[in-house]
């Protein structure tokens, strides 16, 4: 794992996403004509460096899981490039894509739903080997045992079924399956969201150990900001299909620049009563707009406590405002123009405009 502060100037990106869009069409009427689209992901660009963990955070419906799935082409992206290990996944023909699959894998949120209840653990973990190798049974079995050891599952349980395991153990099965073909890149889609607090730490530690041992690169999708601070090197904050801010972990948590990132972090409760008593929360008004009909201009303008006239008109670009920190917000442009005031200081006057409708 990298030392969080430096984004690893020497390391190359393993994953490079440019302008990724994933629109789901909406059909209506008797003729099922296309009447619009849910813009789940609407122009997202980022890199993930070799051996790094990029955290992808945001609230439900912001498109973070869709990004993860579109990256591995479990969805056909509407537009954009996804270069993983030198090849554009988004435009590969099916055969070439299939040959590429072993290097990129996924760990799903719900270990109950993502494991076939009629298959034994050995069959589940070994299925990628059946699909992508021509190994004989002995070799496959040996590999399955090796994987079970790696994720801390007892070999004696190889012939049991998923329902005989607890949630944390099931997630270990899902991780072993993802590791079967020696991938370089794993998308972890809310891997701990369904687990109890005391089990979450076990799974996160396992993911970190495996990263150290196998040099894996992770996209860690989560809504748990405390856990992302623990595991990620850099963090991207998504809102309504777009990245609001992408910063190194410590910089983001110490001083979030985008107003949404600021509100999001301030809303996370901290397990410290003394701190909680004095904390200033930014309470956002209203709900997230529909991704089928995002607001004009900045997509956060309907809830932003610091909204300005320009925000309702012009969409801000994700721009590098400090070394390694990317923010999509018009306030940043004002800050650089007017010297380096701390963000939020001179914009308090806009505070009352956050009301929706």
């Amino acid at each position, binding site marked *: 794992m990298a030392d*969080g502060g430096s984004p690893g100037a020497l390391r190359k990106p393993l994953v490079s996403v440019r302008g990724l869009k994933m629109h789901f069409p909406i059909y209506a009427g008797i003729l099922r004509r296309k009447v619009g689209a849910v813009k789940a992901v609407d122009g997202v660009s980022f890199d993930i460096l070799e051996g790094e963990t990029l955290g992808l955070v945001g*609230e*439900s419906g912001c498109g973070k899981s869709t990004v993860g799935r579109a990256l591995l082409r479990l969805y056909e992206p509407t537009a954009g490039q996804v270069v993983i290990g030198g090849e554009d996944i988004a435009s590969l023909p099916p055969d070439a894509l299939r040959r590429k699959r072993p290097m990129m894998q996924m760990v799903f949120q719900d270990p109950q739903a993502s494991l076939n209840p009629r298959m034994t653990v050995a069959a589940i973990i070994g299925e990628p080997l059946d699909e992508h190798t021509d190994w004989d049974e002995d070799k496959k079995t040996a590999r399955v045992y090796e994987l079970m050891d790696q994720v801390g599952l007892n070999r004696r349980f190889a012939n049991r079924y998923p329902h005989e395991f*607890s949630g*944390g153990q099931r997630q270990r099965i899902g991780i072993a399956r993802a590791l079967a073909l020696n991938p370089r890149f794993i998308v972890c889609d809310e891997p701990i969201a369904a687990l*109890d*607090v*005391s*089990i*979450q*730490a*076990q799974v*996160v*530690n396992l993911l*970190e150990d495996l990263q150290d041992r196998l040099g894996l690169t992770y996209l860690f999708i989560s*809504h748990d*900001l*405390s*856990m992302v*601070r*623990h595991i990620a090197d850099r963090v991207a904050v998504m809102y309504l299909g777009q990245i609001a801010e992408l910063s190194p972990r*410590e910089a983001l*948590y110490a001083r979030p620049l985008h107003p949404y990132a600021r*509100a*999001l*972090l*301030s*809303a*996370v*409760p*901290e*397990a*410290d*009563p*003394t*701190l*909680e008593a004095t*904390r200033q*929360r930014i*309470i*956002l008004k209203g*709900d997230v707009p529909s991704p089928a009909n995002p607001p004009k201009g900045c997509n956060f303008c309907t809830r932003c406590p610091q909204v300005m006239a320009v925000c309702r008109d012009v969409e801000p670009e994700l721009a590098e405002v400090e070394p390694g920190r990317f923010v999509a917000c018009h306030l940043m442009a004002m800050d650089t123009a007017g010297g380096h005031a701390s963000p939020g200081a001179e914009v308090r006057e806009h505070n009352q405009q956050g009301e929706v409708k």
Partner: protein
Amino acid sequence: MPDGAEPVLDVRGLKTVFKTRGGEIHAVNSVSFHLRPGEMLGVVGESGSGKSVTMMSLIGLLPSPPAEVRGGEVLLGGRDLLKLAPRELQAVRGAKVGFVFQDPMTSLNPVFSVGNQIMEPLIKHMGMTKRQAEDRAAELLALVGIPDARKRLKSYPHQFSGGMRQRVMIAIALACDPDVLIADEPTTALDVTIQAQIIELVKELRQKLGMAIVWITHDLGVIAGIADRVMVMYGGQVVEQAPVRELFANPQHPYTRALLKTVPSLTGERAARLEVIQGQPPILSGAPVACPFRARCAHAHDRCEAENPQRRAIDGLPVGQGHDVACHWSPEVRHG
């Protein structure tokens, strides 16, 4: 904290058992706690720790069979709820005790308008006319921060977002001015920014209306921000109970201590590695004769296997009043 007022709710030695084909599951074992007027009690525990079952047992919401409340007393306003006939209990539910559940989608009826659902307890418990109930319902919706309240009475649950639906649930729970509000993971299904809105709302309502609240959650962060007192549950038992600051500053039970360490901090020092509680939560079959945490406890010794520890005060106050813990081990006296 000396007790100034009579508790509004006093639960003593509550026991609930589920009868299954595989034997009996002892889901709640001798749980005792009380609630003073206007107090906010936080209940923390993992799934299966018995926190929800405890609350459902006290107002007779568990289906029987398989559930059976085996013993204990639940005193609300001097009456033992466990001794009430179903009809009498129904009059208590909704009127004296309000309940907010985790999932606002499944706890609202999709085929009735929200106005209809808020008016139901008003007409049933308070004997209001339809007209009066409608006025009160509009007032309640406004109280929980839903704009355009009167118009929204005609809307159906699916026309509200998750956070708004939870506001509606709170409005229903508060309709008859209950003495006690039980909120079972009310923000778990919500996003953090919406969770912050709901927490803010409940704090405000509590100040305005002065009811006592039980807030069940697995999120220590939420508890830290809202509770006056905290009760930690594990394996169907109360393992520790203390005023909120005391609990976070001076946790006694090995489970509480470990739990506080497994949660990564948002602002503090970032640990290189998360602390882990090894193993799995217990399966609660058979009568509880040993400490439920022993298999995962770093301090377990012979006595923990032989004898289920009773709650004992660590600050000289009576158990339940100050800081108490159910553990044979203690951080000061290291034995075993």
